[in-house]
């Protein structure tokens, strides 16, 4: 197993190509800035909009999608528990979103070989967040607001503002996969 001896890297959205290219699978990253949550049904809708030709209701250029459906927000809190969900379920939707300019995907677990190649092709990065650590991760979200598809409840698209959100590089722009190292 690869150990990353490199120091922790701070990143900010929108993600810049030069910053992404410097990342290596296994690197630890602290992410700041806004990301969009989306999981199964929101992905289906976004991709249906692209394929239907009506375009996306949000600009994904240089942005990151977090595969996450948080718990309800209690009074006085920014957000509920908000860890990552299993990324592989979103594999089938990755291509059109990467073609729309998406540069970062955040989730847990492996991606398909096809997605690994697409990530390399588009110079994007797949990040891992710690699965099952939703309470811990909620402390690194400083703002959350519903953006799209509110009828989907926890599967709606939220805009989250992150502060030092701890991630690990899962697949880098060269297509190196931390699970294959």
């Amino acid at each position, binding site marked *: *197993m690869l*150990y*990353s001896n490199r120091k922790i890297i701070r990143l900010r959205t929108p993600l810049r190509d030069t910053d992404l290219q410097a990342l290596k699978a296994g690197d630890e990253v602290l992410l700041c800035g806004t990301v969009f949550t989306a999981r199964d*049904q929101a992905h289906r809708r976004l991709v249906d909009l692209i394929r239907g030709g009506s375009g996306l209701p949000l600009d994904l250029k240089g942005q990151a999608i977090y595969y*996450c*459906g*948080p*718990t*309800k*927000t*209690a009074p006085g*809190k920014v957000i*509920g*528990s*908000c*860890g990552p*969900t*299993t990324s*592989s379920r979103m594999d089938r939707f990755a291509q059109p979103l990467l073609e729309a300019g998406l540069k970062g995907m955040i989730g*847990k*677990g*492996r991606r398909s070989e096809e997605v690994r190649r697409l990530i390399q092709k588009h110079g994007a990065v797949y990040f*891992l967040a*710690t*699965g*099952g*650590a*939703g*309470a*811990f*991760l*909620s*402390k690194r979200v400083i703002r959350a607001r519903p953006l799209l598809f509110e009828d989907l*409840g*926890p599967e709606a698209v939220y805009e989250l503002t992150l502060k030092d959100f*701890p991630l*690990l590089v899962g697949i880098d722009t060269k297509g190196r996969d*931390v*699970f294959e190292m």
Partner: protein
Amino acid sequence: MKKLTEKLISATVSRLCIRANTNLRPDVEAALRRAARLEKNARARKILRQLLENARIARAESLAICQDTGLPVVFVEIGRDINCLGLDLESAINTGIRGGYEKGFLRNSIVADPLSRGGSTGFGPAVIHFEFVPRRGLRLTVLPKGFGCENKTQLKMFNPTARGREIKDFIVSVVREAGPDACPPYTVGIGIGASADHAALLSKKALLRPLGKWHPTDHVAALERELLREINDLGIGPMGLGGRATALGVHILTHPTHMAGLPVAVNISCHVLRSASALLK
């Protein structure tokens, strides 16, 4: 004969939903702590410490340990002295689920129609297993099952002449296929025997046994130990990034079966193995 009220049952289930989802089981927390202590891989150790910190925050702030607050599975054990005559236990339990999930700000993860994926049921309904037991009182146990790991469940109907090696290989392969995706370190529930449906139920029930406790029968406990060793030899580790702690425990439940068959069901739990239980007397 003890007569319980629907109100008491609902209130108890509500409380258990919140407790299970925000207060990590002490045996699970102890197992994570032990895994962190024994782990030699630095990154794995760091992840395990994050999980312990997560459990601490969740408990202190009454936050869900994981945003997937699961499909609620409820086990109801009805003792000999309990009079359920006229009680709508199922509705009382589902009222409790709704109350607990709402009050605890837990996630409504249930879709009404599994095919169209449409429609909200407003939390629940729970999957409820009723059982009459030769004890006193009524025991309610809520196990909110996350679906990242539930999706990794497998059932295999072996020939009755299958060797132990084949059975072990199957169980280890289920964990290998789950790999990093279902939030290791896992607890592996296994049901052996009975029928296909009952083996699956046993594999889930096995998750209720406290970690660190082995099966009371020697040869079954020996199988659990061998499986735990083989699973940890896979080296999947926390988050699937390598390390010793691939599983925290392997729990087997067995049941007599037909001479023509040997059902084996494997139900994996993520490291957020949640359940809470109360005995009404």
